[in-house]
């Protein structure tokens, strides 16, 4: 794929930010090569690419954290250097990150004005003026937040609002949003979209990084695709189709995203009856069969992860029983869950899944040490054998099995975590948002592997907030809302509309059929 020539007729205004010939290398890695990018006032440019394509590097160059090896940055036609983060901010470039880089112990107003607080007499901070200005900024973006609230008491969505208010306070011309919706609920996402529209109307140039195609097509005006550190294409959203973007991202055509399979259901593997928790969930009951993929859909906070973590022995249900196969199982700890053949691939890969700092093979064998060791003594050859067996089945990409798992991309970390659990030879595997934040190639590998596992008779539970994934993978789906099961659909009953309606509390979406 060649770089598309810029079409002169579309450029109604001059770009506010221009990158040309940007290259950046780290020892042994070429992160960016001869990248060009233009951002226009009042327009949203979507930046897409697989993990490791160089998106994070370009953000760090734009915010002054990295210096490019070659290439030039121009703001409003003026050549400039972002030698520090402060220089980038002074030039009007600001970023809203996945994990916001704000200060939990400071107040909303302090976060907004950190480094440029209004000064009063003798150079002291004018607190009243600062709080007033913060209130005005928050009102301008329609955020109902108390300027004197401490940041740690706010949710992620509110923290994004504070970041955006900060962007306005420094009169930013360029706002970079790095996967801003990754941790937001449905409602919060829509509020964020509205805010993006408002920023556009104020003439800000927005660089929007996202893995979600539906939102890119919804809010972006332009697109740019990175692959392996290079810009492989760019243009206007209205001239492009999803399939074209995917093709550019992966460098090949991905026509079959979800594997086709013929589920063969075996006997019940897991039966949950009347599971309750004082605050998180109520009366959860379902039967999962061998060879089945059971989807759990719902909004963030619907209690799906809490149910799964309780099944995995992390929290105690206040009532209810669970059977594994035809035996009653009492699960009081994760160790007992694993012994009973239930394993859980957590949503939070960074802190709950992967043990960063330990090499790949040690991550894989951690829950299986009883099997790979003899009388408590490690057998490294056995560990490497086990790690090799399961990582190769998942098509892991790594320099060696002794490599620190922290050095892998998100998708490959996820493969290590899944390999870790498969190595325990489980009967039931629970995958919580298994493809969140990982690149398309790894996604497809994980999906294919799930299908393969179910084909081999493993019982699979998949918690997912992505409708295409739920629709594409599950044989049956349970929708949860506010801690309760509100709907259940067989494969041929699932429609995106029904799922969304049930999750949002608008009925189970089956009324029209019953009527």
């Amino acid at each position, binding site marked *: 794929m060649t770089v598309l020539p810029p079409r002169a007729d579309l450029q109604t205004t001059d770009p506010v930010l221009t990158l040309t010939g940007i290259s950046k290398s780290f020892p042994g890695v070429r992160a960016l090569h001869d990248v060009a990018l233009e951002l226009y006032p009042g327009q949203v440019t979507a930046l897409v690419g697989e993990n490791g394509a160089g998106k994070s590097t370009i953000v760090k160059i734009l915010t002054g954290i990295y210096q490019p090896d070659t290439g030039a940055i121009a703001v409003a036609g003026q050549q400039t250097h972002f030698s520090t983060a402060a220089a980038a901010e002074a030039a009007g470039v600001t970023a809203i990150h996945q994990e916001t880089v704000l200060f939990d112990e400071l107040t909303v107003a302090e976060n907004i004005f950190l480094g440029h607080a209004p000064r009063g007499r003798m150079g002291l901070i004018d607190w009243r003026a600062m709080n007033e200005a913060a209130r005005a900024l928050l009102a301008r973006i329609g955020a109902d937040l108390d300027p004197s609230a401490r940041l740690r008491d706010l949710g992620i969505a509110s923290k994004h609002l504070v970041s955006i208010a900060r962007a306005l306070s420094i009169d930013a011309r360029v706002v970079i949003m790095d996967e801003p919706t990754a941790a937001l609920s449905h409602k919060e996402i829509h509020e964020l979209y509205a805010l993006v529209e408002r920023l556009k109307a104020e003439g800000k140039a927005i660089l929007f990084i996202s893995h979600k195609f539906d939102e890119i097509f919804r809010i972006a005006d332009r697109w740019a695709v990175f692959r392996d550190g290079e810009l492989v294409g760019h243009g206007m959203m209205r001239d492009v189709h999803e399939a074209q973007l995917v093709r550019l991202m992966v460098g090949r055509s991905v026509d079959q995203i979800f594997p086709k399979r013929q589920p063969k259901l075996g006997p019940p593997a897991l039966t949950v009856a009347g599971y309750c928790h004082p605050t998180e969930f109520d009366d959860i009951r379902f039967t999962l069969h061998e060879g089945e993929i059971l989807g759990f859909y719902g909004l963030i906070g619907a209690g799906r992860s809490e149910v799964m973590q309780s099944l995995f022995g992390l929290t105690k249900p206040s009532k209810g029983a669970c059977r594994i196969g035809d035996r009653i199982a009492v699960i009081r700890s994760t*160790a007992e869950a694993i012994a009973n053949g239930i394993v859980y691939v957590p949503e939070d890969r960074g802190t709950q899944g992967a043990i960063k*700092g330990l090499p790949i093979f040690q991550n894989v064998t951690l829950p299986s040490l009883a099997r790979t060791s003899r009388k408590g003594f490690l057998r490294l050859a056995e560990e490497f054998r086990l790690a090799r067996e399961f990582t190769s089945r998942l098509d892991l990409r790594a320099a*060696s099995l002794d490599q620190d798992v922290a050095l892998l991309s998100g998708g490959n970390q996820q493969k290590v975590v899944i390999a870790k659990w498969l190595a325990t030879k489980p009967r039931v595997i629970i995958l919580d948002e298994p493809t969140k934040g990982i690149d398309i190639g790894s996604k497809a590998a994980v999906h294919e592997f799930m299908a393969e596992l179910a084909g081999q008779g493993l019982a699979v539970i998949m918690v997912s907030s992505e409708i295409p994934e739920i629709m594409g993978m599950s044989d049956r789906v349970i929708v949860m809302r506010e801690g309760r099961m509100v709907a259940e659909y067989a494969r041929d009953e699932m429609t995106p509309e029904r799922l969304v309606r049930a999750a949002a509390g608008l009925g189970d979406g089956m009324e029209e059929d019953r009527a």
Partner: protein
Amino acid sequence: MSDARHIPDRLDRPLRRLLRSWEFLLALVAVAIFIANSLASPYFLNPWNLSDATYNFTELGLIAFPMAMLIVAGEIDLSVASTIALASTLMGAAATAGAPIAVLVLIGLVVGLFCGAFNAVLVTRLGLPSIVVTIGTMSLYRGLSYIILGNQAYTAYPTGFAYFGQGYVFWVFSFELVLFVLMAVVFGALQHRTSFGRMVYAIGNNPTGALFSGIRVARVKAILFLLTGLMSGIAAVCLTSRLGSTRPSIALGWELQVVTMVVLGGVDILGGSGTIPGVVLAALVMGLVTFGFGLLNVPGIVMSIFIGLLLIGVIALPRLWSRLKPRGT
């Protein structure tokens, strides 16, 4: 990008790994100090003098092994020196009452275990941070010792009791040195060759991830506190035997020397990494420095200053070194 089907087990060759390791650097430092000492003093290379020098690190080292594992797991025990004081005091009281040697040793070990168990309960059951808990028990254990002893001293130890701190197993090899080597092997094997050691690394790198991987995190930590208490009890037996007397100020300030030894040995104070061979080498380095300065009649305070500078130096050097290299990550 390497092909998925051909991921090698390891990339580094073992020798290259060794040459780049912290332990290798420490070994070089130890050899350098050894040579400097032998040049500076004609008395240094005498086998009996060298044997005497080992007392500078054997007792500290016995505690440093479990402490290293505890710090790798992300916890710390600052009550070890006070545990020695309490164990020694109760041993002294029993000796005054006429208890035989076996009972004295048993008291030392049980008191050590008990102190460790109390720390373990406070940290793992109540979920309190270990640095706060053990600063508290540091005052508590030594406080008990002061209440029992006041400004008195126990000196009525039976004659045979002196073996643990003054006896020799073979030629110049003292009981303490043999015990140190034995425990170095035991703890080295525990940390580097067993599943338990692997769990300790996992917990130190990511306690939540370890819990989600089915590791009984609280149990592993409790065992580490018990081991630290037990080894403090053993050190109390050795030290009391060597001194032949107990005062409440016994082993004052040792907790910091033990932690210094562990950190000098390359254990990350924030947890997650470090090795027992590193701690052994750090013990040698500290012992050699102390002994060499002693031969040269350098006052104790200068020794403390030197050990402090050495600690800061070895920690700062690698960071300064990486800063001199072109900026990467």
